[in-house]
């Protein structure tokens, strides 16, 4: 009869625990610890008003990121023209808002769906490179918008029209964009989990060849994922335009959204992830941004830190996926 000493048993259970803990979990704990430590050493960071600010700034970023998540889940990486689309459709919203807020929102959503649907068709049907197509689409949108606006860099909200201002108000201390984000997450998750098209997005992202063998129309699914992305980004554009009432330059949405999606744990190769995770990623991006502003860092330092974080997340996730496979 062998007797296991308590110390040996402890070390054995510790060993099995270490084996169970994945690289992603270790990295997540490490990142969380760093964020909390920096938050603690930043003066007045852990206050209610700071967290209210983080939540309020994350709304629009999260909606753009949710759009990008549809693309990433379907195995089509991300778009490099999200900022341009937000700018162009935001300008279009301010031009159309005299029709009434709801018709204007509807037109903008349709425009977003068409812009991204066409890109989805090129990527899904012709197999064109998603990065190149989105860069080209970005410049085309910019060129057409500059032409239509007479190269006017700044589009102001029309004077005297107030019917859309409910979109920039706060409700219970929280901006409308944040409540809208929660609504979009619920609708998006229902679409992904409860509809055939949503489940097909996961399958196509996970294993394109298997999806094709199973008789799924991969091209159609790709176009649907792009259209979903376009609708989300278009809605974010209307919220952004309604909030600022003066759309004149591109925001940091393109890379903020990519960072949010990947920090949230959505697999860059597609098939794994969720919209809720992306919202969490967007909150981390806003937290980081707010903390660095309060510590007095300039925008390039924020970009540098975002880059390091993205680099680390991509490496850890791909290593982890390889280990699982």
């Amino acid at each position: 009869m062998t007797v296991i000493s308590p110390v040996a048993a402890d070390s054995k259970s510790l060993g099995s625990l270490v084996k169970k803990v994945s690289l992603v979990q270790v990295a997540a704990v490490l990142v969380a610890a760093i964020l909390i430590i920096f938050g603690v050493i930043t003066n007045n960071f852990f206050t209610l008003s700071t967290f209210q600010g983080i939540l309020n700034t994350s709304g629009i970023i999260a909606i753009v990121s949710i759009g990008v998540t549809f693309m990433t889940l379907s195995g089509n990486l991300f778009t490099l023209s999200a900022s341009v689309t937000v700018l162009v459709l935001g300008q279009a919203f301010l031009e159309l808002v005299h029709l009434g807020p709801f018709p204007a929102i509807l037109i903008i959503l349709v425009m977003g769906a068409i812009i991204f649907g066409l890109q989805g068709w090129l990527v899904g049907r012709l197999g064109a490179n998603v990065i190149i197509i989105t860069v080209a689409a970005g410049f085309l949108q910019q060129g057409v918008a500059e032409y239509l606006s007479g190269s006017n860099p700044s589009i102001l909200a029309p004077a005297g029209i107030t019917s859309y201002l409910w979109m920039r108000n706060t409700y219970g201390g929280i901006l409308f964009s944040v409540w809208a984000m929660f609504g979009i997450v619920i609708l998006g998750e229902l679409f992904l989990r409860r509809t055939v098209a949503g489940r097909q997005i996961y399958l196509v992202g996970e294993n394109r060849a298997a999806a094709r063998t199973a008789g799924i129309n991969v091209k159609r699914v790709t176009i649907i994922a792009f259209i979903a992305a376009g609708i989300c980004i278009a809605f974010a554009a209307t919220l952004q335009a309604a909030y600022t009432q003066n759309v004149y330059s591109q925001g940091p949405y393109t890379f903020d959204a990519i960072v949010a999606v990947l920090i949230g744990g959505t697999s860059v190769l597609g098939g794994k992830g969720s919209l809720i995770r992306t919202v969490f990623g967007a909150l981390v991006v806003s937290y980081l941004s707010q903390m660095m502003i309060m510590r007095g860092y300039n925008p390039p330092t924020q970009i540098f830190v975002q880059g390091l974080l993205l680099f680390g997340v991509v490496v850890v996730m791909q290593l982890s996926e390889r280990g699982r496979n």
Partner: protein
Amino acid sequence: MGSLAGKNKLRVLRQWRDLPQVAAVVVMFAFFWIITEANGTTPFSGANVANSLNYFGEYGLFALALGITMILGEFDISTLGTFALGGMIAIKLGGSNPWLGALIAIACCAAFGLAQGYIIAKFKMNSMTVTVGGYLITLGLCGAIGKNTQGSLLNANVPPFLQQNIATVFSPMSLFVFALFAIAGVTLRYTSMGRKFLAMGGARKSSRAIGLPVNRYVTLTFMLSAALASLSGVLYSYSTATSLVDPGLQPFLFVVTAVLVGGVGLSGGRGTPFGIACGAVTLSFLYGVFMTTAATPNISDTVYGCLLLVVAIWSAPSLKEWLGSFTAHPIFRRDQETKVAA
């Protein structure tokens, strides 16, 4: 006899892989000439060509940097960051000694490229996603070094030296860039290293199976692409005497289009430095057209965007299949059947 030699020459010409790229240069040059003459403000001269080729000098090596990673079947978005970072470091450190500034800039960016390439090669990662992180890191570094403001070169002798006229249409900068393209072309075409490189781009798995050092080549290619992009940034900064904090995606639009017009395939293994040079020269002449006609940004953005879209569609793998679906239509089939019957 004479006609046989002529036919052989024609066959050789048809088999020349870079013929479409050369044709693109000729057509764009003719268009540039016609537009300048039609514009009527100043007659077409060597100065027009020299200005366009200076544009090629500023961005040509950036196109080569991206092109070599694409020939290897990878994609390096971080070249956009190293382009900006190289220029910024050179401007900050090259005030008294421009050579030293350029050398340090290239060395720093090459070291970054080496680290990035090692990670991509060692862990067999998707280069597009890793290099987006690399792009943000280098862009952030560039802004931090420049304290978020555009830098300017203290040595006023450098820009006139780089842009001085040689043989009417060239400058030291454009000739230097042409020379580097020639070295890259000869290396790829006539050395075993170059042939291995092309083989790895076309058939990565087979190359690994026959024992080629794929990881080493991938690592070194990313190092070289970072070094070339930073050198391009140095040339841009030295010739304009300014360095950019954030160049945006505009230079990327130019180089991606140049590389695709240059005949580089997105799946790897296809393309030559000569073709990339032709693509970059073609787009430089297009830039000359915009300069001559004083085109507004909306026109140039739309034209570049359309051009990139067209070449991206042209190089899309399923384009032939899609076009084939039209010819498989009953109308066409009936036509073919009639032809067969006849």
